[in-house]
């Protein structure tokens, strides 16, 4: 810890509001390599505020890589250069003195920019409202150990359930497809016995809303998997495609 500070040039996307034109603005910063990327932006904002200037709007919350709130495109890569972490887990020791860093929001038609680096990802929630659940009411459910679930099946469901809803997959995809995100939720339930009764209806409903919300289609380039901070596998996309095809073949009452 506590190596010498480094000096960097930041090129940050500034955009005052949803419907105005944005542009890159340059900032020079000096930062400790032990700082996180977002702490660097905090410090920049603190100095901007002191000068009476508008700070850079960006979002974060847990700063531990679990809530999915943060998300920046750093030098062209969603969540930056280090694989399998979210933006908030990126530390400045991954950069060198004198580097220029380009910082942009997650761009996609379905994720309109609110301000600067903040985007609106409400379309993800809309997909979830359509079917991202098991239809059980509170109470009146069987004992938790009534249905044993094979350990490896539970683990696979967990792997899919680990998605943090950050949207990096959409930002990484040239078509801005949400297939990785949607398939992660579909897979979690498709793997578990609890998800079986609604398996086919769920996938149809979620895919329908996904299409309506303006996400693009999947052309199997797998850029999503490469940028996903949680390592969500594209196997989930194949599983969802399978479920979807079957769902089209079977009628609801079969």
């Amino acid at each position: 810890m506590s190596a010498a500070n480094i000096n960097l040039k930041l090129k940050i996307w500034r955009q005052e509001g949803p419907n105005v034109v944005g542009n890159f603005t340059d900032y020079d910063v000096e930062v400790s390599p032990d700082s996180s990327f977002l702490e660097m932006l905090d410090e920049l904002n603190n100095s901007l505020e002191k000068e009476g200037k508008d700070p850079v709007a960006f979002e974060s919350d847990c700063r531990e890589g679990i809530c999915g709130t943060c998300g920046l495109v750093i030098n062209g890569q969603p969540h930056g250069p280090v694989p399998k972490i979210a933006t908030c887990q990126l530390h400045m020791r991954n950069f060198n003195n004198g580097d220029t860093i380009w910082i942009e929001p997650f761009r996609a038609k379905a994720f309109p920019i609110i301000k600067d680096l903040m985007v609106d990802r409400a379309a993800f929630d809309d997909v979830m409202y359509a079917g991202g659940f098991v239809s059980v009411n509170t109470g009146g459910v069987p004992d938790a150990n009534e249905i044993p679930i094979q350990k490896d099946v539970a683990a696979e469901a967990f792997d899919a359930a680990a998605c943090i809803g950050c949207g990096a997959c959409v930002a990484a995809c040239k078509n801005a497809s949400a297939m990785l995100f949607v398939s992660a939720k579909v897979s979690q339930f498709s793997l578990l016995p609890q998800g079986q009764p609604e398996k086919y209806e769920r996938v149809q409903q979620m895919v329908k809303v996904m299409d309506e919300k303006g996400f693009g289609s999947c052309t199997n380039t797998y850029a999503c998997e490469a940028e996903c901070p949680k390592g969500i596998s594209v196997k989930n996309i194949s599983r969802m495609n399978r479920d979807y095809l079957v769902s089209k073949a079977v009628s609801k009452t079969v």
Partner: protein
Amino acid sequence: MAVLNSKVPDGHISEKWTNHKFSIKLINPANKRKYDIIVVGTGLAGSSAAASLAELGYNVKAFTFHDSARRAHSIAAQGGINAAKNYQNDGDSVYRLFYDTVKGGDFRSREANVHRLAEVSNNIIDQCVAQGVPFAREYGGLLDNRSFGGAQVSRTFYARGQTGQQLLLGAYSALNRQVGKGKVKMYTRKEMVELVVVNGKACGIITRDLATGEVEKHSAHAVILATGGYGNVYFLSTNAMNCNVTAAWRAHRKGAFFSNPCYTQIHPTCLPVHGEGQSKLTLMSESLRNDGRVWVSKKKADMRAPGDIPEDERDYYLERKYPSFGNLSPRDISSRSAKEAVDDGRGVKGGEAVYLDFRDAINRLGQPAIEEKYGNLFEMYETITGENPYKVPMMIYPAPHYTMGGLWVDYNLMSNLPGLFVLGEANFSDHGANRLGASALMQGLADGYFVIPYTIGDYLASEKPELIPTDHEQFVKEESEINDLVKRLLATNGEHTVDEFHKKLGRIMWNKVGMARNEAGLKEAIEEIKEMRDSFWDEVKVVGGAEGVNQTLERAGRVVDYLELGELMARDALERNESCGGHFREEYQTNEGEALRDDQNYTHVSAWEFNDVGDWTHHKEDLNFEYVKLATRSYK
């Protein structure tokens, strides 16, 4: 006591909840849709409440300042959730969970509430599994458990190191289903900034839209706050960046009593501060203490690298002071001992950190075994610090983590203000002076899934279905007061940023109202906070405007509330002349440095009534321990 009626039902502890459910008023299913309920907060407590109430037929409006319900701070909980299932056949029971929680809370919680919590704990696990929450399982396919936080039974259910995430996503899915059905109207990016009270009853809220800046009025037959804890008063804590006290505090200003604000929990195993720019602290799971040994140098300001400090110059202080529990001593004891070592100048290189060393465990069990157990945590440590904990001991230090205090509620989870209910970490109810590991998730979901759906009916049954319209003069007045507050904040043009104020307050709180408190320090803290409050309006600078996104303005409003809360925490700590759980007063300790409770004078809940800024009336709710006998904790 006249002002505070806890409404604890009669009967044997094991029958109170059952009897109560039978005797409270019900609303018939067809009439439920005539009632609107506002739920503020969509963490475990809020999401589960909103979903369950909507299932019953109520019209629910759910609010969160986050961009999605799924982002609530609950998502970050790692360790697990307790339940008295006794799947391991190791002698667990509802009564034992009840007993452990009362004792763990250092005899400062309400027995009846805790017993109910233990009773419904099992339903929570059933509910979550039915929703598709992927809990850890054994090879036979049944649910796995582990022991947590010093419990002598294995009752903690977990989902890798992401239990909070999976539970929240479960509750979020139940909520989504109701949003899809139109029974819950979801309001995201809306921050509640005021509670509206008409004729002494809570009947609505004022919100500010964090994307547009618009101030809006919402009315309902009842308001539920599930808005989380206030740990961020310390600036640096393990809480998410946006956790804040505003919803609870503004309700407090409107008449809701604030209870036991001085009960705060400091977690012993967090990553130490790296510098001035530090924005928050990261928790390292407590499970590390199963194999790591905590030590510091015996010498002050020892600048040597850890590997250069020979064995006989190391002080394994937990093992030395608490031979039977050693490195697994409870959270408060471990935290305080670390602070003592640091205050004595024996922290890592004279600074604020102690070592958590796996060398012996690696030698004993081999690196693969340690990797298997803690691989993720070691990786996380390396990502953040850039150091490899297989080679160099970890550095840890305690950090504010959880707040046991909160708004006062009765057995129905209703505050002293009729129509205002408080759930989850935002209320004071179940953990007394200290919360046990894996019990906050349990409480949040108990409140939301299994308590409020019943108890809210008891209130609503006597309410008329007519809504107070949002053009009522009280709504209009509150709305204009919020607009004024915004204007006043934006009119400031001092030298200091909002964060600078927050950091300064955090330092005062950490040094004087933190892990160990004393009379002189608390009095100083009160004076210093008052001064800060006075200078705030002249010296702060809030840039930007009222429209659109203004994150500085958001934070400024929250700091205004912290500057009042901070004083109340210090006053509460000063009033409580004893040490209990997370509240350690240096004057009240045994010769061995253990907390000294004063059951004669302090077996009560403190409840503070707001009169004016810096002026409160102190009320008490006496606590009776009929089932768990008052006894001194001992971990020697």
